[in-house]
């Protein structure tokens, strides 16, 4: 196990404060990232293991559904951004059990809808069919939202869509390749070209 003390020692050579001024933006990012990552590993356990909230089959459904919501185009998509892994962490550690169960029941419903339409479970249907199913769910969601229905945002599909978007646009590919945001640009330009 890496202790905080080790984390600090690992950085001491490059991050001693008097030298910080000479470092570039990328080096600063690296210092922060490494210090945090080492400390986090100890506290939360690595998130690279098997899913904890979702079964393997459910994880597969979430991966494919998220990819339909945020597909790979000329830029990375939800699968490249490992959105399903983020959603698994959220379901395991952030949401309440009732939210988690509602979400998982929704995945069962996705399979049922796919079977009705194609005779196959969701993850075995074509991308086009998957999109059709999800678009129907999205239309229903918009109707509920427009009607200001109580709990519209708690619906499992609202959760799935929101988590897919959030997970993607906060991922490294989402920020660096899709949004092309420099997190530590080292300067401020209030009139840059877009």
């Amino acid at each position, binding site marked *: 196990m890496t202790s905080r003390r080790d984390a600090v020692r690992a950085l001491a050579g490059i991050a*001693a404060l008097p030298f910080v001024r000479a470092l570039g933006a990328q080096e*600063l990012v690296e210092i922060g990232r490494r210090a945090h990552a080492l400390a986090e590993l100890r506290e939360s356990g690595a998130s690279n293991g098997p899913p904890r909230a979702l079964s393997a089959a459910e994880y597969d459904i979430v991966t494919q559904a998220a990819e339909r919501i945020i597909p790979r185009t000329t830029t990375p998509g939800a699968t490249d951004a490992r959105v399903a892994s983020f959603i698994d962490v959220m379901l395991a550690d952030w949401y309440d059990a009732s939210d988690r169960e509602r979400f998982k029941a929704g995945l069962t419903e996705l399979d049922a809808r796919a079977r009705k339409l194609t005779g196959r479970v969701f993850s075995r249907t074509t991308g086009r069919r998957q999109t059709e199913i999800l678009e129907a769910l999205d239309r229903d969601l918009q109707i509920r939202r427009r009607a200001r229905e109580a709990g519209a945002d708690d619906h499992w599909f609202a959760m799935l869509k*929101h988590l897919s978007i959030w997970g993607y646009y906060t991922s490294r590919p989402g920020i660096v390749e899709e949004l092309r945001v420099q997190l530590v640009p080292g300067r401020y330009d209030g009139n840059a070209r877009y």
Partner: protein
Amino acid sequence: MAMLDIERDYDAIVVGSGITGGWAAKELCERGLRTLVLEAGRDIDPQRDYTEHVPPWDMRFRGLGNRRAIEARQPVQRRSVSFDELSHVFWTDDVDNPYSTPADKPFDWFRARQVGGKSIVWGRQVYRWSDLDFEANLRDGVGVDWPIRYADIAPWYDHVERFIGVSGEALALSHLPDSVFQPPMEMNVVEAAVRDRLRAKFHSARRMTIGRVAVLTQPIGERAPCHYCGPCQRGCVTRSYFSSVSSTLPAARATGRLTLRPHSIAHTVVYDANSGRASGVRVIDARTRIEHEFRARVVFLCASALESVRILLNSRSASFPGGLGNGSGTLGLGIMDHIKWGGASGVIPGWEDRQTIGNRPNGILVPRFRNLDRGSRQSGFIRGYQFQGGAGRVGWEGRTRDPGIGAEFKERLTRLGPWVMSLAGFGETLARDENRARLDDTLRDAWGIPTLHIDVAWSANELAIHRDMTESAAEMLEAVGARDIVRRTRPSVPGNTNHEMGGARMGRDRKSSVLNGWNQAHEVPNLFVTDGACMTSSACQNPSLTYMALTARAVSHAVDSLRRREL
């Protein structure tokens, strides 16, 4: 708490290591006093504890925070604007540190316990007061008159600003005096256009300038200029923004006269009835729970406004049954905050081919323009407010509920939306004795120390100010051609601005105030209170700069008095 361990003497004790404690420590040490700083929280090592460069993808909840843990342990602190998934470690645990309020008068008490205190998470906006503010109570007959005027504090503003580094634009306004400035940060293209349009419509009556901020644009010693990473509330390894950790505590340490003792929860200032002086401070060690008493010739309370009030209320003796230095009966009275969130936002059409690069830790400022003179006098309220705000383009976060899925939806989310300009007011709160803090007779913190019952509500004047903020913000946005203007009409909860102040006010006599014009307890001459507790009125400016200047000024007086053997 069974053991009482009396430890060796110091010249001075400072309770708290935040904005004012750091300043007291620096000034006391530099003037030759062996100084003990008692900090309730842990020590801070920037390399270990600062996380401002952690990218979102390395956060377990991608910025959404550890909801379950936070709801269980930090249900109050989470409401601070500076609270996020990583900065939450700089805010206290609400279960260990309870307080109470009347059921119908919520109050957000945001507290930070670590070396550096709230100077790690503060908003960094710094504005001088003027005589418009120092004369306000006298003019309006509200509360008590300030025992000082601008001329008394002006040289101390200079002194503080040179050390902390303040970037901003000089405007030569008599009611918002210029600081000693480093070059200002840049307005973005839309803010500059809004400023120009405001000038065309309102001339000099409503100005707009870049925020005045304790973030460097030029180096000071080992402190580097800002590199625009953004999340200042998680720390700053380049020491670009002012904090005790980056600036005052290192200066104090460099003298060789500083002793910093973390995990030391001060609960009582000990009073010696024979000498009529404070003899020292009692603390509970947060880890061992052993009680210690430290002695010194002079004591500075810099524990934050309400904590200092709490310590004084807990320091009861036969001489002072109602709390130390409370012969006036005013200890705990006149708690203030700034009322905020009145304001508006609107879309500024155009500039769709422009964007900002970098995360500027600063916004714009519209200095106060109400009740400055006969021409700007309002019938509905006294005092005034200022706007902070800025312009930016709406990103994907604002469109997650849009209809659609798939490639086209992704493309839409990724594209930046229109420019939105927002103005958010910060309004003066009157010092009213019915807004008060007292000890809660039944509630104790995790270390057995009696805690506060805080009873604060807005009065009609604050609510009138708040309504005017909203209307004038909308009026200004209309004047500059904004569309889809959204008015913000709900006032903040008292305390939420984290500008809580008052409770041990300065005044001209011991009958109506706790402190004199040197932040010195009228009745205990070697006791000084220099954090927000000392405030006699609130003005509408962010208060930390004034606390720092008052602290440096009080130390100068204390050390001079010690040398003259008057303390």
